């Protein structure tokens, strides 16, 4: 190779063709996720080495039915394949991934890809499932009819991709000879019809389908897509998901907080009293530790989302929710981004790229931050466990869990309401765009894929805890510790600090909603990430109250706040636009400061109003 040391291979395929599983099988943990310059589409690439020692760089492109490109995601696939992507050369080889159990649309895509003139290799993935179902594919005939080499693979089995890698190696060897002049043009309806007929003809020639197709998916769907039972099951699944997040994570969380408690005690014993000890104990242990504790909950939530997606259930959920979401002016497809937003609004907002209509995409982006993201979990859990009694209603429904569920419900309801209002007032004139979605066959989730997905999420979270959250903790500790109190001062030293000064300046604004100056000051670093507010409260109260407060922020809060303040704080966090990264993603995705400012303003207004109403209502009811 002359200009490059590696062969660049692009993975292209229809949605649900098992492309990601194949990518994971080929590259394992040697993956890198980044963004394409200028767009927020994720660029997934990975490295592998063939038996002959050739270095191969694999790029996983967004799934698409056509190169026409109807969403930012699909545009990336076309631009990349055609070599028009800024900073990216055209791929040396296109791997067209085809689900061997469902070839019809994929073969049409392959015919379209052929017109780009790039060297191509067709991969019949999941060939094991196809054989088990009695689908016989004559790969030689298929290859001859298509005019491109064909190889089979089983992404989920060890050694299932050996032949594929060997063929990539072999084709890369003669890449120069393979390149042809492309004449791809956006196909018209007539072109598409003709291509689909040709694809159907090729399949008739090369593939023998069984008389009896797969019935498992049909039997499952008879229940899961039942108009009534289906919706009931969907809500049961969501309810179980939240129960698992809150009860399943408990033992691991206690383990983590116990470890931090011991580390805190250890540093207390080893370090001399003074600034360093205060920094380690109050800044690092109480702050960062207070946030790391929530890793298990976040991972359980992502585990459910990844499992449901791999199972093929997510598309069903979108089907079931389409009308319900439609009445709020949202697209059925918005269900998946909004569900992801329960984990974090950022991947949720990025997932709105699958909504091709710009207006519906914008509505979804605007309401996504109202879904209760996992960064709110620390805030909610802390306040709930400090103020809501740990009793069980009717013996098995935990009251704390119920309050948590209620907070989620308020988030969902307000998201639907905001979507409805913005649709009604802003975009009344525009008809709703079509909802069309493939419902893939159910597949057993691949543990390896899920493991890799969870690993990536854990890394992102730990990196955030190590960088953003840590930096904010240092800042808060500094503000709360300096300037030092004058000699002979009797009040807690924090009363003389910068934090107290700042808190007292903002406090008058927040006093009507029942917030004290400690909350006011904790809200500022909370802009970096919601859960930082918990850590900041931990640090502020730890410095104020001494060592015992550092380990038990919850108990501390219970003595310092009234119930009305606690409830107002919860109400504030349902709406508060307290996440700089989310705002930045909104700015990037909508390409406008205006929408970012609009989101910030409407959420802040709602937060203040909700906290105000909650605070005063609670006081009227005697919780002051």
């Amino acid at each position, binding site marked *: 190779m002359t200009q490059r040391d590696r062969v660049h291979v692009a993975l292209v395929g229809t949605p649900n063709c098992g492309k990601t599983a194949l990518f994971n099988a080929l590259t394992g943990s040697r993956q890198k996720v980044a963004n394409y310059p200028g767009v927020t589409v994720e660029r997934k690439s990975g490295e592998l080495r063939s038996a002959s020692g050739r270095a191969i760089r694999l790029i996983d492109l967004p799934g698409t039915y056509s190169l026409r490109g*109807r969403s930012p995601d699909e545009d990336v696939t076309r631009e990349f394949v055609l070599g028009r992507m800024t900073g990216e050369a055209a791929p040396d080889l296109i791997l067209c991934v085809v689900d061997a159990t469902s070839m019809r649309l994929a073969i049409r895509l392959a015919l379209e890809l052929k017109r780009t003139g790039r060297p191509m290799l067709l991969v019949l993935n999941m060939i094991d499932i196809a054989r088990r179902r009695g689908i016989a594919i004559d790969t030689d005939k298929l290859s001859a009819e298509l005019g491109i080499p064909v190889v089979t693979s089983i992404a989920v089995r060890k050694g299932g991709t050996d032949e594929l890698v060997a063929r990539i190696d072999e084709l890369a060897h003669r890449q120069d000879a393979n390149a042809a002049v492309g004449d791809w043009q956006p196909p018209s309806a007539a072109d598409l019809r003709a291509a689909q007929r040709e694809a159907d003809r090729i399949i008739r020639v090369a593939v023998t389908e069984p008389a009896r197709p797969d019935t498992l998916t049909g039997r499952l769907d008879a229940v899961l897509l*039942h108009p009534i039972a289906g919706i009931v099951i969907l809500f049961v699944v969501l309810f179980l998901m939240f129960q698992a997040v809150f009860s399943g994570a408990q033992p691991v969380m206690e383990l983590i907080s116990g470890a931090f408690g011991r580390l805190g005690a250890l540093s207390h014993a080893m370090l001399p009293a003074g600034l360093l000890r205060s920094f380690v104990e109050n800044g690092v242990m109480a702050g960062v530790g207070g946030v790391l504790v929530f890793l298990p909950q976040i991972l359980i939530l992502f585990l459910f989302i990844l499992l449901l997606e791999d199972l093929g259930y997510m598309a069903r959920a979108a089907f079931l929710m389409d009308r*319900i979401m439609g009445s709020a002016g949202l697209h059925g497809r918005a269900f998946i981004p909004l569900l992801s937003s329960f984990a974090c609004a950022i991947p949720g907002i990025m997932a709105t790229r699958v909504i091709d209509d710009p207006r519906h995409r914008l509505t979804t982006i605007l309401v996504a931050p109202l879904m209760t993201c996992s960064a709110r979990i620390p805030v909610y859990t802390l306040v709930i466990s400090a103020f809501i009694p740990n009793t069980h209603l009717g013996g098995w429904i935990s009251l704390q869990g119920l309050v948590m569920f209620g907070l989620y419900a308020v988030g969902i309801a307000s998201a639907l309401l905001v979507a409805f209002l913005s649709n009604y007032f802003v975009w009344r004139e525009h008809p709703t765009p079509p*909802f069309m*979605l493939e*419902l893939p066959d159910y597949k057993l989730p691949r543990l390896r894929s899920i493991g890799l997905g969870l690993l990536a999420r854990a890394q992102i979270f730990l990196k955030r805890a190590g960088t953003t959250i840590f930096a904010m903790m240092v800042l808060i500790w500094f503000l709360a510790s300096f300037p030092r109190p004058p000699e002979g001062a009797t009040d807690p030293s924090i009363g003389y600090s910068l934090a107290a000064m700042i808190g007292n300046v903002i406090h008058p604004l927040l006093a009507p909603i029942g917030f004290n100056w400690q909350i006011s000051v904790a809200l500022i670093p909370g802009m970096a990430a919601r859960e930082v507010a918990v850590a900041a409260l931990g640090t502020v109260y730890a410095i104020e109250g001494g060592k015992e407060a550092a380990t038990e922020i919850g108990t501390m809060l219970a003595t310092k706040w009234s119930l009305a303040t606690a409830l107002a704080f919860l109400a504030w966090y349902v709406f508060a636009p307290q996440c700089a990264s989310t705002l930045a993603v909104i700015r990037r995705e909508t390409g406008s400061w205006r929408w970012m400012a609009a989101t910030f303003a409407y959420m802040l207004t709602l937060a203040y109003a909700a906290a105000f109403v909650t605070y005063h209502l609670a006081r009227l009811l005697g919780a002051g």
Partner: protein
Amino acid sequence: MDMSSAPTERDLGLPLGLADCGFTGEIESVRAESCASGITDDELERRLIELGFVEGASVEILHEGIFRRDPIAVRVHGLTIALRRREAMAIRVRRTSAQSCR
């Protein structure tokens, strides 16, 4: 009114958007006309074809939603596609056998 200017259902086939759950048939034509979908008729037609709705393909309505029996899940040539009845109006079908969903 002259019958030739008002084509009957027999001429053009039944719009899939009006078919009941359990309907089994074959696609006669795919042609979007003033579909009010927020996209052009030509674009809707292309999207339907990209999902496999071409003339001659066999279709079956497998499921429908609870509200106004919408959206519908359609089995088309071995693939299941969810779509709303409004867009399914662009697909004209001919019944091949009588069956019911439930």
